[in-house]
C-alpha cells in the first residue's frame, strides 16, 4: 500500500509539473490513432463481409451447368446448413406490346437465404423474405420500362404466362452467375417446368447456395470439391475481387499506413521523453536507496507508475479514438445506409499491444537502467550513471520492428522498412561526421557562425540522434503528405470523368456495324468491339491434377494489345503465322501456365491447339472489357462469336441506352454508372478521412521534433547561462543557435526526403502494387520543411532561455 501511495504521489506530482506531458501526449496520440483506425477498419470489414455475404447470397455458392448436384448434396444431409437452389438462364420475354431478352432467375422457396428484397407494387415499396408466388414474376425497373408493363399485366415466358407482380428495387444475391447482364426477372422455381424453356442442351446455370457455421461450410466446400466437374465453380466469402472490394481494401491500406507512421513517430517521442524522465529521477532513486528502499520495491513503484500512465492514456486515447472512428463513419455514412456492426476485440487488442510494445520498448529499458544507480550518487554528484546506451537502443529497435510487423503483418515489408530506416539513419550519421570534420580547439565564440559550426562539431553524437529523430519525422510526414496528395491523387484520377459507364454484350456480327454507326451518330465514344466466345481450356498433361484447368473462359482474339495491359513475359503477337495466346498474370500463376506451354481450347465441339505466347497484367479497374485469355485472330477464323464493348453515355443522354436496346433487341446493355459513382464517392470520403490521419501524423511528427529539441536544450540552457555570464550577448546566442539548427534542419530535411523517396517507392510497388513515380517536389519540401520546422521550434526554445536572467538559469 505504501508503494502504491508513493507511486501515485510521484505520478500526480509528475503530472502536475508537466514533465510527463511528452510521454502522455505521445501515448494518447498513438492510442487515439491506433484505436480510431482499427475500430473503424474492423467495423468496415464486418460491414463489408455482411455486404459480400448478401452480394453472394450465402456463405458459399456452387455454380454448375448441370442439375445433377442437387440430389448428391441432399444425400449428404449436412447439419446446420440452410440450402437453396436457383436456376439461371436467358430468355426472351413478351408483353402484350413488346419483347425483350431477360436474365431469368428461378428461385426455390428458401430464397432469399440471406438479406431481404426490396420490391415495389401498386401499394408502394415493401421488403420481402420470400420467393415470388406461383404464376407471378418480379422484374427490374429497366425491363418493366422496356416491356411497358403495369402491375398485374400479363407476360409470356416460353409456354407459360405470368402476372407481373412487383418491381425489384434491391436484391441481395446480385452476383448471380453469368446471366446477370440482362434486365432481371425473378420467378418461382416450380414454374420453370411449365415454361418448357429448359431442354437438353439449353444454356442454363444451376446455383446452389449454402448458409451455416464456418466449420460446416468448410465441410460442404470439401464435399463440393469432390463432385465438382469441368465448368463448375465454388465461390466463398472473403474473396471479393470486385472494384468496390479492391477500393475498400486499398483504403484500409492507406489508413493502416497512416496509423503506423503516427505510432512510430509517437514511439520515438516516448523514447526521448523517457530518457529525460530517467535523468530527472536519478537523484530520486539514489535517495530512496539511501533511505533503505529495496531495488525490488523501487522497481514495483515505477511499475505501478507505468500502470497509472497506461490506464490514464488508454482512457483518454480510447475516448478520442472512438470519436475519431465516429467521424470517419459519419464521413462514409452515405455509403453505409444502415448502422455499422459493433467492433470486435481486435481493435482493443492491437491498441493494447501497441501501448505494451511502446512501454516495454521505449520506456521500460530506461527505468531498468535507472534502478541500477548507486546510492553513492546522493553523496557524490559525479558518481557515473552508466546509461547503457546499446541495450536501450537495441530494445528500441526491437520494439520498432515489432510495431512494424504488428501493423503490416508482412515480414518482408517490415524488414524492408526497418532496414531502410536504419540504413538511411546510418548514412545520415556518417555524413554528419564526414561533413563536420574534426573538432578544433575552442568554442569559436567570437561570432555566431563560428560558434554554430563548432557546436555542430562538438555535439556530433547528440546531433546525430537529433538528426535521426528529425529525419524520421520529416521522412514519414513527407510519405503521409505524398500519400494524400500523389498516391490518392493518382488513384482518384484513375477513374476519369469519361470512363465507360455502360457495357454492351451479346452483339451479333450482323449488329456490330450498325451499332458502331448508332454510337457514332449519337456522338458516343466506345472502346473497341471485342469478339468473344465461351471456351474451356485444357492443358496437355491432364493427368496431373495440379495442372488441370477446369473452368470456362470468355476469350477474345485481337491483333493489338488492349490499353492498360502490359506484357510481363514472352512477346505480344507479331506478323508471323505462328502466334498463340496471351494469358493474364493471375491465371498464369493459378494454373501454372508458363511461356511455351501447350494448351487446347475447346469452343463448342471444336478443339484448337495453341501455346502460351505471353503473360500480361490487366487493369481490372479500367472499365473496359478485360480478358483473362486473348488469342491471335488466326486461331479463331472459323469460330462464331458475339461482341462486347463499353462506352460512356453522358448523364443528359441516358435515354440512349434504352433506344439502343430497342433498336438492337439481342444486345444487352447494362449500366455501371452507379458503381463508378460509388467508387468515386468512397475515394473522396477516404481522402477526407486520410487528411485527419495526416493531421494527427503531422502532430506526432511535430511533437517528436519538439521533444528531440527540448531534450538538447536542457544542456544548452546551462551553456547559454555561462556564456552570457561571461559576456556573450543574447543576439550571439540566438543567432548561433538558429544557424546551427537551420543547418541541422536542412540536413535532416534532405535525409528525410531520401527516406520519403525510398518509402514511397516501396509503398507504390509493394503496398498498392502500382508503378513507382518520382515526385520532384519532395526534394524541395524535405529540406524546406526541415529548416522551417526545426528553426522555428529552436527559435521558440532559445527565446524562452534568453528571456531568463543568466543568474536564474545558473541557479536551476
Amino acid at each position: 500500500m505504501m508503494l502504491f501511495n508513493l507511486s501515485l504521489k510521484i505520478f500526480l506530482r509528475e503530472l502536475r509539473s508537466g514533465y510527463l506531458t511528452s510521454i502522455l501526449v505521445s501515448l494518447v496520440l498513438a492510442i487515439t490513432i491506433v484505436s480510431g483506425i482499427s475500430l473503424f477498419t474492423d467495423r468496415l470489414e464486418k460491414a463489408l463481409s455482411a455486404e459480400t455475404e448478401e452480394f453472394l447470397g450465402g456463405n458459399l455458392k456452387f455454380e454448375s451447368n448441370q442439375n445433377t448436384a442437387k440430389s448428391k448434396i441432399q444425400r449428404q444431409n449436412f447439419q446446420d446448413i440452410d440450402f437453396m437452389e436457383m436456376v439461371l438462364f436467358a430468355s426472351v420475354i413478351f408483353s402484350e406490346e413488346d419483347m425483350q431478352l431477360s436474365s431469368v432467375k428461378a428461385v426455390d422457396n428458401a430464397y432469399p437465404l440471406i438479406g431481404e428484397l426490396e420490391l415495389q407494387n401498386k401499394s408502394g415499396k415493401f421488403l420481402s423474405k420470400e420467393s415470388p408466388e406461383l404464376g407471378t414474376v418480379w422484374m427490374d425497373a429497366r425491363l418493366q420500362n422496356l416491356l411497358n408493363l403495369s402491375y398485374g399485366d400479363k407476360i409470356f415466358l416460353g409456354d407459360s404466362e405470368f402476372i407481373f407482380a412487383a418491381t425489384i428495387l434491391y436484391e441481395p444475391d446480385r452476383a448471380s452467375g453469368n446471366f446477370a447482364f440482362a434486365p432481371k426477372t425473378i420467378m418461382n422455381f416450380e414454374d420453370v417446368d411449365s415454361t418448357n424453356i429448359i431442354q437438353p442442351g439449353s444454356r442454363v446455370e444451376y446455383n446452389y447456395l449454402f448458409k451455416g457455421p464456418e466449420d460446416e461450410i468448410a465441410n460442404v466446400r470439401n464435399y463440393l470439391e469432390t463432385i465438382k466437374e469441368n465448368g463448375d465453380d465454388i465461390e466463398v466469402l472473403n474473396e471479393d475481387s470486385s472494384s468496390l472490394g479492391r477500393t475498400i481494401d486499398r483504403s484500409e491500406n492507406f489508413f493502416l499506413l497512416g496509423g503506423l507512421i503516427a505510432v512510430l513517430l509517437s514511439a520515438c517521442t516516448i523514447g526521448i521523453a523517457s530518457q529525460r524522465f530517467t535523468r530527472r529521477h536519478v537523484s530520486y532513486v539514489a535517495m530512496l536507496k539511501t533511505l533503505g528502499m529495496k531495488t525490488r520495491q523501487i522497481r514495483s513503484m515505477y511499475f505501478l507508475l507505468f500502470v497509472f500512465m497506461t490506464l490514464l492514456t488508454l482512457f483518454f486515447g480510447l475516448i478520442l479514438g472512438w470519436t475519431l472512428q465516429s467521424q470517419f463513419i459519419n464521413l462514409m455514412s452515405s455509403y453505409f445506409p444502415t448502422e455499422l456492426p459493433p467492433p470486435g476485440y481486435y481493435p482493443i487488442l492491437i491498441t493494447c499491444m501497441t501501448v505494451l510494445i511502446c512501454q516495454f520498448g521505449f520506456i521500460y529499458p530506461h527505468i531498468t537502467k535507472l534502478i541500477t544507480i548507486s546510492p553513492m550518487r546522493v553523496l557524490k554528484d559525479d558518481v557515473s550513471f552508466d546509461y547503457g546506451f546499446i541495450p536501450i537502443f537495441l530494445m528500441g529497435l526491437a520494439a520498432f520492428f515489432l510495431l512494424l510487423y504488428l501493423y503490416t503483418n508482412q515480414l518482408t515489408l517490415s524488414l524492408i522498412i526497418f532496414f531502410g530506416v536504419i540504413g538511411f539513419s546510418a548514412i545520415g550519421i556518417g555524413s554528419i561526421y564526414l561533413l563536420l570534420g574534426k573538432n578544433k580547439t575552442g568554442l569559436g565564440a567570437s561570432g555566431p557562425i563560428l560558434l554554430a559550426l563548432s557546436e555542430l562539431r562538438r555535439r556530433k553524437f547528440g546531433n546525430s540522434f537529433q538528426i535521426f529523430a528529425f529525419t524520421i519525422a520529416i521522412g514519414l510526414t513527407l510519405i503521409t503528405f505524398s500519400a494524400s496528395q500523389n498516391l490518392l491523387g493518382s488513384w482518384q484520377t484513375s477513374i476519369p470523368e469519361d470512363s465507360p459507364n455502360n457495357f454492351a454484350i451479346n452483339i451479333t456480327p450482323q449488329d456490330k456495324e450498325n451499332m458502331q454507326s448508332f454510337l457514332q451518330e449519337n456522338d458516343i465514344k466506345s472502346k473497341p468491339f471485342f469478339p468473344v466466345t465461351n471456351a474451356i481450356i485444357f492443358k496437355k498433361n491432364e493427368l496431373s491434377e495440379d495442372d488441370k484447368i477446369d473452368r470456362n473462359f470468355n476469350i477474345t482474339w485481337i491483333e493489338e494489345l488492349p490499353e492498360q495491359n502490359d506484357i510481363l513475359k514472352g512477346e505480344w503477337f507479331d506478323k508471323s503465322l505462328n502466334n498463340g495466346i496471351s494469358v493474364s498474370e493471375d491465371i498464369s500463376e493459378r494454373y501454372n501456365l508458363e511461356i511455351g506451354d501447350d494448351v487446347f481450347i475447346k469452343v463448342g465441339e471444336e478443339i484448337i491447339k495453341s501455346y502460351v505466347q505471353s503473360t500480361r497484367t490487366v487493369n481490372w479497374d479500367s472499365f473496359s472489357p478485360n480478358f483473362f485469355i486473348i488469342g491471335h485472330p488466326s486461331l479463331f477464323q472459323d469460330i462464331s462469336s458475339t461482341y462486347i464493348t463499353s462506352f460512356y453515355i453522358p448523364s443528359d443522354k441516358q435515354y440512349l441506352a434504352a433506344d439502343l436496346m430497342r433498336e438492337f433487341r439481342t444486345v444487352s446493355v447494362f449500366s455501371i454508372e452507379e458503381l463508378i459513382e460509388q467508387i468515386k464517392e468512397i475515394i473522396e470520403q477516404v481522402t477526407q478521412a486520410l487528411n485527419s490521419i495526416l493531421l494527427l501524423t503531422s502532430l506526432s511528427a511535430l511533437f517528436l521534433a519538439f521533444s528531440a529539441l527540448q531534450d538538447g536544450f536542457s544542456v544548452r540552457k546551462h551553456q547559454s547561462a555561462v556564456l552570457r555570464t561571461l559576456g556573450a550577448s543574447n543576439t550571439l546566442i540566438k543567432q548561433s543557435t538558429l544557424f546551427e539548427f537551420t543547418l541541422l534542419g536542412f540536413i535532416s530535411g534532405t535525409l528525410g526526403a531520401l527516406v520519403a523517396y525510398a518509402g514511397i517507392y516501396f509503398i507504390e510497388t509493394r503496398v498498392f502494387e502500382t508503378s513507382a513515380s518520382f515526385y520532384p517536389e519532395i526534394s524541395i519540401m524535405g529540406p524546406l520543411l526541415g529548416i522551417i520546422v526545426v528553426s522555428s521550434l529552436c527559435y521558440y526554445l532559445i527565446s524562452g532561455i534568453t528571456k531568463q536572467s543568466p543568474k536564474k538559469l545558473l541557479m536551476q
Partner: protein
Amino acid sequence: MILEVNKLRKEVSSGDNKLVILDDVSFNLLEGQSLAITGPSGSGKSTLLGLLAGLDTATSGEIYLNGEALHELDEEQRALLRKEKVGFVFQSFELLPSLTALENVMLPSELKDEDEPEERAKYFLDRVGLKEREHHYPNQLSGGEQQRVAIARAFACSAKILFADEPTGNLDPKNGKMVSDLLFEVNSETDNALVVVTHDHDLADRCDKKINLKLGKIVE
C-alpha cells in the same frame, strides 16, 4: 572608483506578498581593492553579487561599475560590460562540460575576439598549476582542480573586477586554502578589484574591506 552602490533595494514577488531581499545597501570599492561580503544563509549575499555583476536587475538604487551606470543598462549592454570588465568564479565552478580545461579558459578571450586566445589560456592554466591537465574535461578533474580552472578563466578575461561567489564553498579545507591563496596571489599581480561572497572567515579576513549582511541590510 571601480564600484559604487547607492541605496540598493531588491524585492521579489511571492504570490501576493512582496519579499525584500536587499534594502538600502550602499558602499563603494576602489580599483585593486578587495571586498568580502559575509552573512548568514538567506541574508542576500548572492543576490547582491548578482546585481553588482549585472546578472540581475535591482528594484531601485544605483550601481556604477567602472563609472558606468549599470542600473540604466539593458541586458545586451550589461552583457557587453560583463564581457569587457567582469570576471567570475562560482561556488559550483560552472565550467562547460563539453569543453576541455583549456577551452573553458579560452572562452572569455574568444568572446572578445582577442588574438591568440589559446596562448593566453595556456598561460593562466600554467599559472594555476594545471598545465598538464589542459586537455582534460571537467568531469575528469577534481573539485579543487575545477575551481582552479574557473579562476584561470576569470583572470584570462582581463577584467577590471572579479566576482567570486563562495569560491571555496564546495571544497575541502586543504583545497579551499589552495584556491583562496591562488585567488589573492593572481589578483595581486593585476590591479583588479575583487568582490568575494563567503562564509569562510579566513578568506574574508584577507580582504581589504568587509560588509556583513543580515536580512538584506548591511549591519556592520
